[in-house]
Structures are given as C-alpha cells and as structure tokens.
C-alpha cells in the first residue's frame, strides 16, 4: 500500500511540472500567427551577473520580435553546455546563440550545430574552431583606446603608466591592451611596465605592489579587467598613495562602478552584456532574412567616469 503511495507521489510531482509547462507551451503556440521562430541561447553560467544581463537582453529582444526563446544554463560545465546545444538541435531551433565556458569546448558545441545545419552566433569569449555566422563581442580594442585617451587627458605628457594584463594567450583582453597601448603612446604617455595578474583580484594587488616598488613614480595604471583593477586599488591604498594614481579598469561590473563613484577608480570601461544579447538576436534575425551579417559584430563599450 505504502509503495503505491510513494510511486504516485513521485509521478504526480513530475507529471505536474511537465504538464504545466507543456500546456503552457501548447497555448503559446496557438497564439502565434507569424512564422514562429525559435532561438536557443546556451549560456555558460547564469550564476554570474554579466551573463544574466546578456540573457535578459536576448530574452527581451526575442519577445519584442515575437520569437520564442529557450535559455539553457551550462552551470560552468562544458559537458552540460554540449548537451544543451544537442537538445536545441533536437528541437530544431532556427538559430543557436552561444556563450561558451571556454573557446575550446565551445568549438565542439559549434561543430555539432554545424552538422545539423543550424546557424551559430557566438556571444563573447569566441571559439577556436567551428563555423559561426557572427561573433558578437565588445569592441575591446576601441575600449582600450578610450581608456588610453582618457588616461592621457588626466595626466601630464610624458607621465609613467603601468599596464596589467589578463592571462597570457587570452585573445579578447589582449585587444584591450593593444588599444590602450596605441592610444596612450600616441598621446605621449610612457608605459614603463606590463605584467599579467591572471584576471584575479588578489594577484592584481600583489602585482601592483611590486610595480610600485619598482617604479615609484607611476601616475596611472590600466588593468584589462575589473577584478585586477580592484586589487590594484587596494595595493595603492595600502601604500598610502590613494588619490595620487589614476586607475582604469575594464568590464563594468557592479563593484567597479561603485569604486568609480567614490573616486577609488578613475574610470571604468563598461561592457554592455544586455546590449550584446540584443545585438545577438538582431544578427540572427538579419541572417535568417537573408541580409548580410558581419563576421564580427562589435558591441560598443562605455567609459564610466565620476
């Protein structure tokens, strides 16, 4: 007797959820009159605010255009990411948007989509191989340039500045560095040091401390991401040089925005993940309508100052 009760409970629970969603889907299907497009967005980690904003952008733009949108979270596991893409292929979505955990495992997912003939649009990160229609990514180089120009405007000509980079080999952040270097040098700043801090806040702090030792006359620092910048801020404060060194970060995360507000960061180049999501959907729509789409679609970045 009790066995039956237990089994029924499990079945009721699962059936309930499934039916609820299932009927929900069915009813929304009957509402549509236009050709119902379905997009799938496989995102690496909805536990990260950045990706949540990107997903919000995707969902909003899809809704505005009357497209059904499926967002699947990989929860930092590349295997789950691959499974998600396979499920989207199974559902015969019209386009797949992908923000992979890393560019190598992302390639595998892209190839699976290629095999099924579904167009792929990569949002940020990039993939090392596989056919995608467009990479929608922040204009990292432009952002770096903006940072370089702004720093030059704050400092006298010939001032010494440092450049803290992300892990060696990471392509996109390196573009930020290139942009900064070009703009800063052109504006007359002297870059006296360039060190990686592996995108980590703690390491950023350590590296900054070492740089202050080696180059006591530094007037400014550009960090290729916000975490390292926030680490540099702490190192500067600990050395008692708060307010004397201009620090610029990159990403636009909430902590950095606050730091700019209270003057600890001179400025922050903010990415716009929401905008990236919107542009991703637009690119996919354009492609499906036969319009030409750029291989790389740049999402503008904003310079946040106080």
């Amino acid at each position, binding site marked *: 007797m009790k066995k039956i009760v237990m089994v029924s409970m499990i079945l009721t629970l699962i059936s309930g*959820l*499934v039916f609820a969603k*299932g009927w929900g889907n069915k009813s929304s299907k009957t509402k549509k009159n236009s050709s119902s497009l379905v997009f799938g967005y496989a995102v690496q980690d909805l536990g990260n605010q950045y990706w949540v904003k990107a997903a919000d952008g995707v969902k909003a733009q899809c809704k505005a255009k009357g497209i059904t949108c499926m967002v699947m979270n990989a929860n930092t596991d590349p295997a789950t990411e691959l499974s*998600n893409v*396979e499920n989207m292929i*199974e559902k015969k979505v019209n386009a797949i948007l992908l923000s992979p955990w890393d560019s190598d495992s992302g390639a595998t997912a892209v190839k699976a989509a290629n095999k099924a003939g579904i167009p792929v649009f990569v949002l940020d990160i990039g993939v090392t191989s596989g056919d995608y229609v467009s990479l929608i990514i922040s204009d990292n180089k432009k952002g770096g340039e903006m940072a370089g120009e702004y720093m030059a405007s704050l400092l006298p000509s010939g001032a010494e500045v440092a450049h803290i980079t992300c892990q060696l080999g990471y392509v996109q952040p390196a573009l930020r560095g290139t942009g900064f270097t070009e703009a800063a040098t052109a504006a007359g700043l002297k870059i006296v040091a360039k060190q990686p801090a592996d995108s980590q806040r703690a390491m950023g702090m350590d590296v900054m401390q070492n740089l202050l030792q080696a180059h006591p006359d530094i007037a400014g620092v550009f960090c290729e991401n916000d975490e390292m910048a926030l680490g540099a801020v702490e190192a500067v404060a600990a050395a008692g040089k708060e307010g004397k060194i201009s620090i610029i970060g990159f990403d636009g995360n909430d902590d950095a925005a606050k730091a700019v507000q209270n003057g600890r960061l001179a400025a922050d180049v903010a990415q716009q993940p929401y905008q990236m999501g919107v542009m991703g959907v637009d690119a996919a729509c354009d492609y499906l309508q036969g319009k030409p789409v750029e291989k790389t679609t740049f999402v503008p970045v904003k310079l946040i100052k106080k």
Partner: protein
Amino acid sequence: MNNKFFNIGSKVKNLGALIVLFVMLMVLSIVSPVFLTVSNIRNVIVQVAVIAVIAEGTTFVCLTGGIDLSVGAVLGVAGVLAAGVMRNTGNTTLAVLTCLGVAVLFGICSGVLIAYGNVAPFVSTLGLMSIARGIAFIYTHGKPISNFPDSFRFMGAGDIGGVPVMIYIVIVSYAIMYIVQQKTPFGRITYAIGSNEEATRLTGIDTKKYKVIIYTVAGFLTGIASLMYVGRINSGHPNSGTGYELDAIAAVVIGGTSLSGGKGSVLGTIVGALIMGVIKNGLNLLNVDTYYQNVVIGTVIILAVLFDRNSKNTNK
C-alpha cells in the same frame, strides 16, 4: 512464495523506480513531440553516460555502506593529466593509461585510508577530492588543454555502426558489473560486507583487502568515465566533473540502493541515472529553467529514500 518475493525485492529494489521511469517517458512523449525520437533518446543516454559509468563504481561503494565523494574531482584530474600527456607526447595509448592509472591510484588511496587507516569514507574521500581538484588546477594553471586526435576522443565522441561508443560502454559495463555483483564471489562479498562486516570477516574473508579492491574498481570506472568526458568535449578542464559525485550518488539512491549497505544493485542505478537524464532532457525540451530541474531531482531523491525506508519497515 512470500520469501522469494522478499529476496528478489531486497536485491533488485528498482521496481518503483522502473515504474516512475516508464510513466515519465510516456508523459513526456505526449507533451513534447520531439521527445520520443530515436535521436533524442540517443541524446539522453549519451548525456547520462558519464554519470552512469561513475555511478556504477559508486554503487559498489555504497553497497559496502561507504561513500565516495572524490569521483568528480578524480574525473577532472585524471582527464587533465591524460590531456597533458596527449599534448606532450602525442601517444594515445600512453594518455589513456595515464588517465586510468591516475584514477585507479586515487581509488587505491581511498580504499587504503578507509580499510587500513580506519578513516571514515566520508572524510577520506572528501580530503582526496580536494587534493585531486588542487592537483588538476596546479597542473593546468587553470587553463584547459584541448584539441585531441580522434583516436583519443574515441570513447567519448566516436561511434560504431552509427551508435555512439559511449552507449556501448554503458551497456557493456553495466552487463559486466551486474554479473560481477550478483554472480561472483567478489560481488557476494561486497553485499556481505555491507550487511555485516564483522560476521563476514569471521567466516575467514579478508574484508579490508576487499574494501580496497572495491574502491579501486570504482576508481577504474571513474577513469573510463573521464576518458569519455574528455573525448566528448574535446578538452581537458581542471574544473570538469565538479558536482558529478553528487549526481552519481543521486542515481544510486533513486535506483534503490541503500546508503547503509547490503541492499541494491547496478540495475537500479542505471534506472536512477536514466530518470535524472530524462528529467533534465525533458524539462530542457520544454524550456523549463535549469533551477526547476534541480528542485525536481532533489525531491525525487528524498522521495526515493523515504520509499526505501518504508519498504524496509513493511516486514513487521
């Protein structure tokens, strides 16, 4: 006869789980037209394959009343070390042996700590989990090692006659493990140790030695799972397998194996793994958020344990 039923019931307690799986399949096929297609079902099995193979080893461990929390991390470290060997030497055989060897080594360490060191399984395997994960990150500096030749990817991405190799591995390994559990002295001793270790020891069986072997077998299976994983995503990630140990335990528990040992079988575990896979796949197809999936799976686990305890009490 009453007694025969209880005997079967005590070893292969997946009757309830099988019913659940069946009904889920039927309901999902009605509600989602793409669910019951050959390619989707194939996807489901492929998607659970890695966890299913790990869970085989976990079944053995749980049958002795133990637990293994290190399998996820071992999957990771074995995978990245194999990936590294592959990248540095280009020798597939060496890389495969590295993967299996590392996993087996961790299994032996678990077994020895638990059987001879008398450290509780929870604690031993928790410690080894941290160590394994740490080694994986140290070796790779946090960066993945990717892009392997097809020979190395065979177990994860290859196929024979159109059917993914992973599916063959699942079927063959489960068949072997089922026979080992039910028909070999080794399997029988596993059940006996879980039921009453002292009485088993007093019949002249070296229970400590067998415990080490059991954890080593679980390690070997984790090594196989690791090769499948790395082959599938074509990348050795220090992070891989995070949380897989809990998924494996969930599959084992849903399948009816008791965590206190002595009762259950791998048959239940594959049903448990399939139930989890079907839930994830089905809810995915229906565009239900991942976090709802977690709630459902968590609830199923709890109900499965309650059901298990209930049927134990029906003896009175």
